[in-house]
């Protein structure tokens, strides 16, 4: 099968502080994969994900999505590419004072008539789609409450519904469960798994815990100091590899 996402020699240097966040990263993702990126805090996971949809501008290197060069795209072309890439975040990144439904509908902004969106009008189909997606993540009864009245797990599910509105081909999740408790973590991860298996959406997620990565990932990419130190199947990570990724003093922590 053809590669859906190809990353070639991606490098990111933050001008402020002269930090090398990503150092010559190359990998590719096949359609339908569930790729988990692991690594310590500051290893470059978030930067990597944000360089793919250019929320952060890479210093060097290329990103191809469905054969289209994302790094060369500009204006409208970049927006159309971003439309196909859903993203969810560690801190959920909802507009707290807006209603849940408004937050979800924001996922359609790349599709709708811009003039209508200027006066907060969305097509009937989009509103129905929003309600359906909220139902899918199990919070349809909260559609008209303010986003900040929801619990952390519920807010992340709003984030998922917003990403679903984009009808994405690729879903990127930046440590989606770091701010959640273990039980809620699994329910959120299950939605990602469901999207991956039922809708055939490619998923790239960064995770802190190796146990979650093993449970959900079909492939694992490990970063350390901005470099890839491991790439392979979850089962291939043994004690030696674990120490290499997380350092000598690391201990196993299970999230059940």
């Amino acid at each position, binding site marked *: 099968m053809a590669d859906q996402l190809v990353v070639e020699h991606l490098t990111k240097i933050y001008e402020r502080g002269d930090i090398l966040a990503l150092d010559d990263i190359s990998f590719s993702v096949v359609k339908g994969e569930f790729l988990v990126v692991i690594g310590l805090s500051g290893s470059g996971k978030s930067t990597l994900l944000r360089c793919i949809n250019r929320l952060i501008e890479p210093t060097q290197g290329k990103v191809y999505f469905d054969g289209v060069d994302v790094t060369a795209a500009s204006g409208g072309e970049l927006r159309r590419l971003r439309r196909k890439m859903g993203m969810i975040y560690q801190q959920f990144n*909802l507009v*707290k*004072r807006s209603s849940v439904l408004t937050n979800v509908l*924001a996922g359609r902004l*790349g599709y709708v008539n811009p003039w209508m969106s200027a006066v907060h009008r969305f097509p009937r189909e989009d509103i129905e789609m929003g309600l359906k997606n909220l139902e899918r993540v199990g919070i349809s009864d909260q559609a008209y409450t303010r986003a900040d009245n929801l619990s952390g797990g519920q807010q992340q599910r709003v984030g998922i519904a917003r990403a679903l509105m984009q009808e994405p081909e690729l879903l990127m999740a930046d440590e989606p469960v770091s701010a959640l408790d273990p039980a809620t973590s699994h329910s959120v991860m299950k939605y990602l798994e469901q999207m991956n298996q039922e809708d055939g959406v490619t998923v790239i997620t960064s995770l802190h815990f190796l146990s979650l990565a093993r449970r959900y990932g079909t492939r694992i990419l490990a970063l350390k100091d901005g470099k890839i130190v491991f790439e392979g199947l979850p089962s291939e990570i043994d004690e030696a590899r674990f120490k290499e990724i997380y350092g000598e003093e690391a201990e196993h922590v299970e999230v059940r």
Partner: protein
Amino acid sequence: MSKSVEEMQALRFRVFAFFLDWASWGYIAYGIMYLLNSYWYTNIHYYGRLSVPTWGWPIVILGTLELAAISHAFGHSIGLSMFGLRLVTDSFTPPSLGKRWQRYLAWHVAVLSFPVAIWFSTQKSRLLHDRLTGTRMVLVKQYKDEIPILPPRAWYKTNRGEMSVVLIGVTLWVGALVTQIDLHTMISRVSTSSYLWKELLSPHFTHFITPDPALQQSIVSGMIETIFMALLATAVGAAFALPLSFLGARNIMGFSPLGWVVFTVVRGVFNVVRSIQPLLWGTVFAVWVGFGMFAGVMALGFHTVAALGKLYSEQVEGIDPGPLEAIAATGARRWQVVLYGVVPQVIPSFLAFTLYRWDINVRMATVIALVGGGGLGRIMFYYQSRVGLLPDAWNQVGAVIMTIIVVVWVLDYISGRVREKII
């Protein structure tokens, strides 16, 4: 950075620090001269001024130089701490008091023998008095690891702290003389002004509702005018400030060179317009559109655009950037990101600031009457100008002031309640 470059930097800062110390002693000397002169002239010698004879100036200059040398040689002076310099021994411990005296004396040797010392020295970057006493002046940031962490001395025990007290003391004393503060007069004349207080505090509301024939206006109608004036000025100001504030927010504009230019220009205009009093804008608009309430509204509105624009912009800069990132990632346009990500976050504080501004504008509208605006201000200044002609002029002024207080108080209460509700 190489060692020699670091040392040169430290040396350069030492020179700056020394001149700063010298300048602050010079300032104190000048302040003391001013005080002496002032008291000599007013209290001792009622004619003539104290002046320094020609031969006195070298003494003043040398004296301040010596004082600067003392505070510098002992370390912890204002200049040294401002440039982050620290006096230490070769082993980076603070030198003893004896060492500091030695340093002060050695400083004179160094200064007097400067050309010779430079010529014969092998260590050109190390000054003679440093070498003689085995001390050095280092930049704290360059020797963080070597300098031991000691409990800081109490501020009043450092030269820096004592100098600050003297500098502030002299400044305030001179300032009190310049501004002619005179508590004695204020207290001794309480009895002569007491009638004013009595009349202001027993207001006559005779023209509260029935218009004063001379003015053809009642206080109530003036009040309505003032409130409308402030309301219109606030509404017009807010309407212009709202779009401009986004152009004046660093996190919205700071992505392209053009954005930076727009940001800088908008913020610059805000600051210039804001720093000019509404009263001055009033005189400008009185010439432009004629004496009257329209000029008042324009003056207040103009100032409001800048004042609200700055407050709004700061709110926009203080928002949570997370949602913006998320909405940009959905493929939305930049203005859609602003509309869906920024606007909902800033609406409550925008409303709160606008209400607060209305409150301020009511108070300002009364002063604007001096250059043309109508309303309560006009009535107040009219009665004030009739003092001595009308028997109850001050009582009438009192009535207007009471009305202003009540209006401002009510508006403040309302805006407070509304703010509570929407945040």
